[in-house]
């Protein structure tokens, strides 16, 4: 016999299902009267310091279909690399946003500030990135990934450098499509399957 551990096991995930919007963005889902507004409508407030950018993309299933029922959340640092709540963080950067694929087109849009570099816990600098979380019907445990930027120096980023198949690195790169505009598509399967994270 040995002593028993008293640690607990994390509660099992389940899919958010087809009506995840009712719970997380009820106004978007047509339940406008229940809260004053949906949570996480804006990653930034007017006047946030730094480069204001707009990222658009689709979430694409294994058949190539940009599905319409994805719910996404983003979390990021401000332009100086500080997270909301940390000392010296830009008070106009919420850092958190919640958004959904459009019901007609499947396109989602995130308007935010380009984040600064954030150190890992052993002091290495990570390239600017936005953490992304995806929930939908058919996704049994929500997916984590990151948006990096193709026009930044990503050469020293510890996470990107862990990707053995270098041909997969571009799946984490937002492509510049114009001044302050980027494109980031998420592929759940296929040859260009996005790198998802277990972190």
């Amino acid at each position, binding site marked *: 016999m040995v002593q028993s551990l008293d640690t607990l096991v994390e509660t099992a995930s389940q899919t958010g299902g087809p009506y995840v919007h009712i719970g997380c963005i009820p106004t978007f889902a047509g339940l406008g009267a229940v809260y004053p507004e949906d949570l996480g409508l804006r990653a930034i407030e007017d006047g946030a310091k730094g480069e204001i950018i707009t990222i658009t993309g689709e979430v694409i299933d294994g058949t190539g279909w940009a599905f319409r029922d994805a719910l996404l959340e983003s979390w990021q640092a401000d332009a100086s690399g500080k997270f909301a709540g940390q000392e010296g963080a830009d008070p106009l950067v919420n850092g958190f946003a919640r958004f959904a694929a459009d019901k007609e087109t499947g396109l989602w849009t995130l308007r935010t500030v380009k984040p600064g570099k954030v150190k890992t*816990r052993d002091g290495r600098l990570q390239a600017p990135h936005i953490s992304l979380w995806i929930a939908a019907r058919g996704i049994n445990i929500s997916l984590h990934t990151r948006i990096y930027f193709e026009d930044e120096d990503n050469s020293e980023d510890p996470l990107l450098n862990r990707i053995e198949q270098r041909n997969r690195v571009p799946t984490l790169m937002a492509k510049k499509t114009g001044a302050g505009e980027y494109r980031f598509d998420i592929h759940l399967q296929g040859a260009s399957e996005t790198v998802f994270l277990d972190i």
Partner: protein
Amino acid sequence: MSDLGPLVPRRRDMHPVPFDPDYKTSVTRSPRWPLLSMESTPSEETGPRFGHSLIGPLDNNLILNWSKDGTPAIGERILMHGRVMDEFGRPVPHTLVEIWQANAGGRYRHVKDTYFAPLDPNFGGCGRALTDEQGRYQFLTIRPGAYPWPNRANDWRPMHIHISVFGHSFGQRLITQMYFEGDPLIDRCPIAATIKERSQLDRLVAPLDMAMSRPLDFLAYKFDIVLRGRRQTMFENKLEGM
């Protein structure tokens, strides 16, 4: 902000499998290639915080929060309550818990839900609450009905309430579902069956809790939620080869 340590790695074997042919939508929506693993960074160890000013007085009362004139929602009145804690048993205070569910007939208030069961004019189907100092939360609601869904030819969802929890870091984010003790549809449900570890599925089944039930008013069901913990040791070294 103090350093609370890296997140305990997720035990993926304690979670549902991403790909399960019996849950047809998961076939085209599950990644095929291995996830990239790495110790958590501040990007996952921090997360949004929500204050009490966010929460309205009826936000955790689904019996009344959609009612236009105070008429309560139709159905069996229940209290759903429990604690949010981490893997070390520590309470997770002041964290946002959001729920959504079908009405007593098994119908969601959603344009895509065309089930025959009628909408209840006084039931919206969503609520939210912040946990208290001890990590406790409560919702007053009605017991949702089971409903059929297009999957295999005759699949029915057991009675369930969807739950979303933030925790204190983006890496703790969790969506799950609460089932009800004694529901024979749980063992026939392909979504519940995506969890292969039986003890983990059992933990999603809330027991009837007569102690917290209120006589002549509502029954109670208890649902505790465990989020990922943070490792705290005196020995945090730089990893070799990184």
